[in-house]
């Protein structure tokens, strides 16, 4: 039983960490895609959406090639920093981050696009620099969509399987996540364990979504366009 809780705890904290780590880049990408037109924008849009539409194992394979010891990134980490990525918890983190990134960007982008640019303009005339405008006006007004995006990203990370199994494997105690463990239990014919883990997955997802809804309800009454 304690092994199962270890799996739950591991899955939860790596998924939470992954969601937090993709926040800066995710918000930046969302803002750039929502507000400006620039050369190469449609290429960037496509790249960001790719993990969403490609088969997860395909994405996992690309990650394995990049993060393995002989890979572009993994090689650097292994040789210079003496750090392994593939087949460690870092690979789980990477797989989850990549797979959930598009969900955060999509939600945040819509939220940013719905913020009336007039607010940002007036903020500038009042003397705010770009970073101040972003953090004091844009982000608070887009808060709902950002939270929604983070919930989606977290849930996606919790349930990640295809890419994770490719780049991190299912190493007991080291990279075994909830999804991987359910699969393993089914394979071994351990249905009771599989259903226990399934129940925990559902409970986790439920709590995540419910918390998100609660958070968003607290900020009710906020509207984007001025009276």
């Amino acid at each position, binding site marked *: 039983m304690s092994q199962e809780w270890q799996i739950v705890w591991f899955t939860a904290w790596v998924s939470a960490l992954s969601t937090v780590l993709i926040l800066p880049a995710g918000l930046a990408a969302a803002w750039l895609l929502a507000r400006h037109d620039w050369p190469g924008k449609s290429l960037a849009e496509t790249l960001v959406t790719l993990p969403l539409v490609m088969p997860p194992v395909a994405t996992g394979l690309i990650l394995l090639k990049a993060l393995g010891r002989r890979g572009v990134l993994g090689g650097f980490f292994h040789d210079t920093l003496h750090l392994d990525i593939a087949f460690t918890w870092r690979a789980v983190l990477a797989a989850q981050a990549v797979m959930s990134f598009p969900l955060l960007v999509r939600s945040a982008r819509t939220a940013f696009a719905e913020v*009336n640019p*007039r*607010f940002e*303009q*007036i*903020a*500038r*005339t*009042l*003397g*705010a*620099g770009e970073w101040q405008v972003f953090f*004091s*006006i844009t982000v*608070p*007004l887009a808060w709902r969509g950002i939270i929604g995006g983070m919930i989606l990203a977290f849930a996606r990370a919790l349930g990640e399987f295809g890419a994770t199994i490719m780049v991190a494997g299912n190493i007991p105690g080291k990279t075994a996540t909830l999804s991987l463990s359910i699969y393993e239990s089914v394979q071994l014919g351990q249905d009771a364990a599989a259903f226990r883990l399934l129940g925990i997955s559902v409970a986790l997802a439920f709590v995540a979504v419910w918390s998100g809804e609660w958070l968003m309800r607290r900020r009710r*009454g*906020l*509207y*984007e366009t*001025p*009276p």
Partner: protein
Amino acid sequence: MKLLLRNISLPLADFVLEVNVELASQVTAIVGPSGAGKTSLLDLIAGLRRPRSALIQLEERVLTDTACGLFLPPRSREIGYVPQDLALFPHLPVRKNLLYGCKTSLPRGSLFSYEHVVAVLEIERLAGRSVTELSGGEKRRVALARALLTSPRLLLLDEPLAGLDAALKARIIPYLARVRDEFQVPMLYVSHDRQEVQALCDEVVELERGQVRSQANQKA
């Protein structure tokens, strides 16, 4: 006040906004039918839009000069802007809205200090309220105060009385007069209604389909 608007050219939907005037009055009105380009002109002066070509200079300070690629960002222009939709930040209470651009380095009691501005516009009791609870007239005064609290060198007002009934207009106009007299800030006042500008403005510029039709000094 000296405001140079030289060789301004900005393509809009149906026509090109072309303005070439020099404004030297304390309160200047820009009147014209809706869609004449008045708001776009204010946006250019505030630095919220970039023109195809222009030289915009306030006093000795060049704000925009396309000839040498100079463009001062809005935050450095020290120009207050009260837009037509007021744009009061809905996620901040009134007090935070007012203080958003406030130059807190000013000594208490000075002309643009919080206490003074709030007193002149009579909005002290609104400070803790949410923006959504305010009446139309109250919102306008708050928006005005917010712009004033940045100690601007020029105040841009886009249709400040639009959509108000006669009674409310009559109540707001004295406040605008107070702003003109008390704070001595030059104002650029956009309206489609010539009547309301009579009392307040020294000079009237007529804008139609992006062209300046006339420029007349009222107090001549």
